[in-house]
């Protein structure tokens, strides 16, 4: 089984230096890319089926295609790696950042070349200290080796790159809020359209891609679109970093073909539930995805299949809910997080999330009323997709709406017993 993303990552908490990366073929992909037309690179990426691994699952090649090229096109252009991994339960980009930063940098340079960008940034989660060290050093090495700056790898292409360490807002993971933050403004999302490919950083064409997405790019260039497409078990292309957290025997992160079933991930790789715990439910792709239950275990973890059963692949990092943990408490904890991370721009998110979190808190404290469940249900409609300015609140409603669907009895017990049954 091929593991293009993680095959070279050492398990000793050190990262691949430039030399080590070059020794395993690193930056050869870039050299190859620089010999191609930018448009050809975009086509390869598009044909490979690579989709955004940050959660939205939008075709990467299609995104790059939106940038207009040529002498008359607006300049400068920007290319940004979104390394602001703050989705609850997600830690997949961290592995790539800490373990193989050059792979990411090479991906950025190839992407930047494809859209003819002059500047690139790595927008890093503030709490990722080891990753900050790794990226800082790797960027230095790349400059020294001529992979950044003028005449990259002997070509006419030039690109600057710098690391931006975020001050820590979940909102910055949203690509347009990220742009505002990078410009030194409040991390509020922007109106779309226009999309960043047309008007992004400082109003110029900009591409923002997730770390895992970009880490796939070098290998796709060398091995081709078909190779990538064939890596997956289903028709969506590539491998995926799947993770599992919660009361499983072996929590962790595994690179597996896209479309690997939940059962395989949880039972084979995560080793199943810990002794004495039963699987009650799971969030398949981080804190802002809908709960699935044991009945869904045979669903392949890819974009389309998970969507079909009412959730989202998201970041592909599974949060496991066991039978000895209160689902109301778990959802309450998530909603508190989302309420705190709301930027405060649009009404439903700013006002709806704190209200939701307060009700869940009150239920957990045994002060709930049956009307509260109606209000919670109402909130999931009120903050539905399209009703809010960006996807934060609709995402926040996903675990809640599915918890109300699957665990309604547990919510009601909180009300009838005037306490949390798990406490």
């Amino acid at each position, binding site marked *: 089984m091929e593991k293009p993303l993680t095959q070279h990552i050492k398990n000793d908490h050190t990262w691949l230096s430039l030399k080590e990366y070059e020794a395993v073929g690193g930056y050869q992909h870039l050299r190859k890319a620089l010999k191609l037309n930018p448009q050809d690179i975009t086509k390869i990426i598009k044909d490979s089926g690579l989709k955004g691994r940050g959660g939205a699952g939008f075709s990467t090649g299609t995104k790059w295609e939106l940038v207009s090229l040529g002498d008359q096109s607006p300049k400068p252009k920007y290319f940004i790696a979104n390394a602001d991994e703050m989705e609850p339960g997600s830690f997949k980009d961290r592995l790539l950042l800490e373990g193989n930063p050059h792979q990411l940098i090479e991906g950025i340079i190839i992407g930047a070349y494809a859209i003819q960008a002059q500047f690139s940034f790595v927008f890093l989660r503030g709490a990722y200290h080891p990753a900050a060290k790794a990226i800082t050093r790797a960027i230095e090495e790349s400059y020294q080796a001529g992979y950044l700056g003028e005449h990259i790898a002997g070509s006419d292409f030039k690109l600057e790159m710098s690391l931006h360490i975020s001050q820590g*807002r979940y*909102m910055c993971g949203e690509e347009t809020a990220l742009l505002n933050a990078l*410009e030194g403004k*409040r991390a509020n999302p*922007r*109106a779309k*359209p*226009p999309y960043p490919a*047309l*008007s992004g950083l*400082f*109003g110029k064409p900009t591409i923002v891609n997730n770390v895992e997405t970009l880490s796939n790019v070098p290998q796709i260039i060398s091995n081709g679109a078909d190779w990538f497409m064939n890596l997956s078990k289903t028709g969506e292309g590539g491998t995926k970093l799947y993770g599992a957290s919660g009361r499983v025997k072996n929590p962790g992160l595994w690179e597996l073909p896209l479309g690997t079933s939940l059962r395989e991930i949880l039972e084979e790789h995560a080793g199943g539930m810990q002794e004495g715990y039963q699987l009650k439910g799971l969030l398949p792709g981080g804190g802002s995805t809908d709960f699935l239950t044991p009945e869904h275990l045979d669903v392949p973890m890819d974009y389309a299949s998970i969507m079909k059963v009412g959730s989202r692949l998201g970041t592909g990092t599974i949060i496991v809910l066991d039978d000895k943990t209160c689902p109301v408490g778990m959802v309450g904890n998530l909603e508190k997080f989302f*309420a*705190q*991370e*709301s*930027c*405060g*721009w*649009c*009404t*439903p998110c*700013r*006002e*709806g*999330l*704190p*209200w939701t979190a*307060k009700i869940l808190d*009150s239920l957990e404290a045994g002060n709930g009323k049956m*009307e509260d469940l109606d*209000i919670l249900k*109402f909130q999931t409609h*009120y903050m*539905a997709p*399209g*009703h*809010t*300015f960006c996807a934060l609140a609709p995402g926040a409603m996903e675990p809640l709406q599915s918890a109300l669907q699957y665990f309604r009895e547990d919510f009601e017990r909180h009300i009838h017993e005037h306490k949390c049954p798990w406490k």
Partner: protein
Amino acid sequence: MPLEIIMAKVYIDNKLYEVDGSKNMLENCLSLGLNLPYFCWHPVLRSVGACRQCAILKYKDDKDTKGKLIMACLEPVADNMRISIEAPEAHLFRASNIEALMVNHPHDCPVCDEGGECHLQDMTLMTGHNYRRYRFKKRTHNNQYLGPFINHEMNRCIQCYRCVRFYKDYAGGKDLDVFSSHDDVYFGRHEQGVLENEFSGNLVEVCPTGVFTDKTLKKHFTRKWDLTDAPSICHQCALGCNIIAGERYGSIRRILTRFNGDVNGYFLCDRGRFGYEYVNSDQRIQKPLRNQQGVFSNIITVEAIQEIKEITKSAKKLIGLGSPSASLESNFLLRELVGKDNFYAGVPAREGKLIRLVIEILEKGKVKTLCLGEVKDCDAVFILGEDITNTAPLLALYLRQAAKNKPGEQAKAMHIPVWNDAATKEVVQDATGPFYVASVHTTKLDEIATRTFLAHPDNIARLGYAIARQVDDRLPAVDLDEDGETLAGEIAAAMLSAKKPLIVAGSSLFSETIIQSAANLAFVLKDKGKDVGLVYVIPEVNSMGLSLLSDRYLEEAFEKAGQDSAATVVILENDLFQRMDKTATEVFLKQAEKVIALDYLPNLTTAHANYILPSGTFAEADGTVINNEGRAQRFYQVHVPDNEIRSSWKWLQEILKDNPNSQTKNFDAVTRSLAEAFPKLEAIATIAPSSDFREGTQKIPREPHRYSGRTSMYAKINVSEPQSPYDFDSALSFTMEGYGAQPPAAITPFYWSPGWNSVQAINKFQIEVGGDLHGGNPGKRLFEPLEDSGLDYSKNIPSAFSQNQEEVQVMPLYHIFGSGELSALSPSIKERVPNPYISLNDDDAAKAGISEDTILQFSNNGQIFSLPVKLHMGLPKGVAGVPKGLEGTAGIHFPFSIHLNNHKNG
């Protein structure tokens, strides 16, 4: 860019409408008169999609029954589009959104200043939300002290972001922002303190609820429905912004913007909004006064009129001094009283001649003088000499918008609709220009300028001539240094490549040559086929009107007074000590046989009077004034005071009457005779409906139909309901009875429409939201450009300014708060007035060994002034500045020269 209006057919709740394709769905719905609630959208701040209140359903086609919830303010129009406002899902969402906004909004409407004219109240009712389900604690905030104008009550905030979008993005303010995040977002200053921006008062109207309210209103609070309102014109500068003035119990309570798309649009400056308080001064002259051996005592009105009549009739020599702050009608009747040869414009010649020059350019020039509404559409600006923010504040606000037009083209090229402010801002960012400022010192607009040029007025004029030469090389050359030449070339290129270039100048520096240079440049650009505009700033509300009535000035009057016998002088609403030096003015007044003053407040001039008649300010008078653009506009009396205060023209008419019992002519009759005497002013008779205008049989009430307590207001004095005074002079009534719907725009006293109690009821008075008023914006322009102008100033190039040894030329400096004599008497404004100072060029000061705060003594026309020195204002070498019109600098003749070394006085 000419706005292409593409009409589209749209089905709204299954009814077919034709709508404007260049507008979004919310604007179209509102323009159709449909009630769709909103908060963050504002007609000029446009769409950002924050509040989510204007949700509607959009259907794919006629078979789609489910629809998709969308925000109307972010939805472009498409042909055959189907939407629903009334669908239950849309209704529910909008009500839910209000419920969410109400989660933290206090239930303090009964004690909130906004109550009864609150957009949040209106929108809440509109959505039908009423019962609270939220059962937890509300979040609370601390409020800030924001200075004398604005009261802050953050707990009421519904986070629509309009305040920061207006204050920062639109008005260029730096000290109001949004802090914190999630449901804790806070709108205020980084620390409490005075809001610095000159347009802060607009927060009162921009805020949809009671976060930012009028602090001057709070001092004598009255509900909107208890105000007697009149359509009026701001008297605080020459722009003639349209205002609504509201009265209760005999005092003016507040000023609101009266929308006029051609003039001030939705906004006012803080001097205009808060400078009204002098009207309520307890110093107001309320009854005729007679001076007997230096003691003023009340005198019965009929007696006063009789005595003054006799004095004026028997006077061997009569002199009438008009006023640029009085109406055309008052000035005209003074002219009638004293005879046209004895009537003088009450301003010094150095000012009056400049106004005449401006009139000449407006009247005979070939370039259109733009109204403020057109200024904001210009895409290249060159300012010669004016410190706009301080001499014509609202013009500065609109120049700021003009500066965004060229960069905005970039967003248009990306097919981002103009109404999509959020997206436009992301593309345009902070880009401004082309915008060039030439001035004698650094100005506030420098921050948006492409380049600035600090120079003596003559050199500013020379730059203007050099630019004209760059545009047309047949014109005389100007010898500039290399930097000057480069700048001239750059400005010329910017003006030539603009679609609508704008040249701005004015009379503030008393420089004829700047005014001519600006006209010359505009003419040349016009000759090159450019759609160029010209704006001149002049000093006062009716400077232009006064200059149209007379071309003789105070110096001549003073001179005439000194010849032969002593003169009897009638002074209209004019403190001469503000305009002429103290010595000459005193001599003039003391040698007069009799002095009759008509004024609002005691001042040095009235102190010299034998008789004082209590004149009405804009609040107690009807009148016509002409603004800097040449637009004649009407203002109406707000209330009838319970004292002898009345319009000056009414006093003058009483004096003019032969038979005391004969009926006086009403306002229309005065205006008609004025128009007959001055054919140029013919239009003023038709700028507003006449006094016999009726809607059906009814007058237009100044009071809303919910006006309360009329019978109890004076119950402590008399339990009967006193008869309301009758207004013979206008179609307005002083009561709440009358025509209930929309009157003509020129006589609309307040904005109200069923369900729309806030200022945003203005939507219902416009042809389309944000656009012109029904029946057209009020006011009439007196001058339009001529095809072929006989004017040619191209050869009047001044020689370059050169400093004479240690001599410096002192220019007038202006302060929005302070340079206006009457507004500075308002307590709120007073807090913002600076102390007088003299500003020097840093090098000049260093050379003369003068440092910051050194007290410098100098004389002007025999009067000694001692002022502290202020440095770092960017004044060029050889140029100094002293604020004009402050208490302590009144009567200075600008410009004048001083020797630095002779005047030092540690």
